[in-house]
């Protein structure tokens, strides 16, 4: 229920530049994810927002008002930490009610509000346990409840699922998304897991060494990345070097790749003749069956059964390798010669980048 504007945020630790001009924004009720590899500055950005760190430069505003001068304890944001940061000497109920107690709420009000939020996150019955006596998933929910009970303007979540196992992660991820949408709280969410980011965000900021490489919707990030780094980080990807021959319409380009010529969508700023790379997601590739329009040919070099699907790697004649996914029971044998069909509407051309 608040708009957030972060402009050109900079932060140095001694000599090390951790943030080098980060700009992101959230509209009211949006969930914005900061996605990036370890050390790229995600937590630093969040900690500046929370007020735990003082930025060296830039502006942060909530609802149009700068918060730079507001100390952490008056910003009124909810923060959920990676390792939960539950107070080990307080029961679950005391943890959740702590913020209310600080606000001098009456005992009965605290009881009802704690009770309500606990049933919201499905923790009823655990009031009197200590944090060490409940499971990781439950701890995570306590941390969430503790932040939510104060009805924060803005929710900041720093890798809230990192310590959960795969199955719990899924469950809590949906819980967070549901609660955030129900209550309409604006949220910033830090993760280095691309599928997590894709699944729950309204907007994703892919970060790279203290900068934002791309800030867009999940779909755009995945399908129309502005550089190889983004494509690489947001999912499995095949890259083929190619020559761009000529523009053929707004944002389209004709290219020559692996002996074939194709018309594909491209990054708008790309100029014909520039060295470029073609992004082919595994799911836009298919092994050819009879009579199809084969784009590439190659030999299967690796395959693995993954349950819901099979993973194959195919070496092309010119040395490139394409990874693709097939139905779990498709007959793939290492060494077979195969043809590959490309879904051209999902090929994407980017300027050649350093990885």
């Amino acid at each position, binding site marked *: 229920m608040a708009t957030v504007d972060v402009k050109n945020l900079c932060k140095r630790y001694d000599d090390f530049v951790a943030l080098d001009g980060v700009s992101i924004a959230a509209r009211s009720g949006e969930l914005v994810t900061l996605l990036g590899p370890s050390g790229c500055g995600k937590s630093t950005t969040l*900690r500046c927002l*929370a*007020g*735990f760190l003082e930025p060296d430069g830039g502006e942060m505003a909530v609802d149009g008002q700068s918060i730079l001068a507001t*100390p*952490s*304890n*008056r*910003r*009124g*944001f*909810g*923060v959920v*930490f990676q*390792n939960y*940061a*539950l*107070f*080990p*000497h307080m029961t679950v109920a005391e943890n959740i009610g*702590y*913020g209310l107690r*600080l*606000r001098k709420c009456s005992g009965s009000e605290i009881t009802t509000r704690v009770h309500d939020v606990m049933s919201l996150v499905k923790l009823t019955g655990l009031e009197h346990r200590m944090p060490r006596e409940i499971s990781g998933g439950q701890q995570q929910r306590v941390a969430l409840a*503790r*932040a939510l009970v*104060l009805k924060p303007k803005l929710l*900041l979540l720093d890798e809230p699922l990192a310590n959960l196992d795969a199955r719990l992660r899924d469950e809590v991820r949906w819980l967070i998304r549901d609660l955030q949408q129900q209550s309409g709280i604006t949220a910033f969410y830090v993760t280095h897991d691309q599928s997590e980011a894709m699944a729950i965000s309204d907007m994703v900021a892919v970060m790279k060494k203290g900068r934002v490489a791309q800030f867009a919707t999940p779909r755009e990030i995945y399908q129309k990345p502005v550089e190889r780094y983004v494509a690489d980080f947001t999912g499995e990807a095949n890259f083929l070097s190619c020559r761009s021959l000529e523009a053929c319409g707004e944002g389209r380009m004709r290219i020559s790749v692996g002996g074939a010529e194709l018309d594909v969508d491209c990054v708008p700023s790309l100029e014909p003749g520039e060295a470029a790379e073609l992004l082919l997601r595994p799911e836009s590739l298919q092994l050819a069956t009879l009579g199809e329009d084969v784009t590439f040919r190659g030999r299967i070099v690796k395959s693995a059964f993954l349950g819901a699907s099979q993973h194959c790697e195919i070496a092309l004649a010119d040395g490139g390798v394409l990874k693709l996914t097939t139905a779990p029971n498709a007959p793939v044998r290492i060494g077979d010669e195969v043809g590959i069909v490309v879904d051209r509407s999902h090929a994407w051309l980017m300027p050649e980048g350093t990885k």
Partner: protein
Amino acid sequence: MSGASTMFVQQRPVGLGFALLIVLLYVFLLVPLVTIVGASFTAGLMIEFPPRGFSLQWYREFFGRRDLVDGLLLSLRVGAITAIVTTIVATMAALCGQALSGRKGGWFQLAMTLPLLVPELLTAVGLLFFLFKIGLGKTVLGLQMGHILMSFPYAYVSITAALRQVPSSLDEASASLGATHWQTFRMVTLPLIMPGVVMGAIFAFINSFDLYTISLLLKPLGGNTLPLALFDFLTYEFKPTAAAAATISIVLSVIGVALVQRLVGLQRAF
């Protein structure tokens, strides 16, 4: 542990030898104390172990001796004040030390443990001159300052160790929930470092209760601490009363430890 235990299963003789060694070492730790306690109950006239019969006569004698009882009372008083003051100052210093990082933190740590690293004697003599210079010579306050100084590092080290166990994210979580620094300290940090604080206070007290050289030089007019009184006693009389006095200090220490156990749980305190 499980790895080691499997190895035990396979090489029992070594395990047995080790167990014997451990028992011997613990006996070594306990022997002088057990002897004193035993000797204090002797019905005979001489200090000896095993005691000759059982009697409480030496305790009666102890409580009849004003020099020893006064020493005990002064030691208790100075020790209690030392424990309280030292713990407060050390808690503050530990919080400060936590905020200092790297090289500066190292120097601070060194400075705080200085009284432990300089021979007590040097400090004691230096303090003696100094206290007379500032008008605190031969006063209880001067003695008190000496005790606080010498006990400080123990409390500081214990509290700092406890503080290190508190992740900084708890402070931040508390701030993000709207707590001021003081509220965070009172409601989050302090309860969590309590075992270390209590342990520090106990260490400070015990150390103060035991200081000899410093007390010898700085003791106030008309006052003697228990170790000094005991030393004097042993100097002129070699009677089981001393064992009774020593047993009383042991009992006081045990009460202190039991108190920690009740307040914070001993395992957490170390």
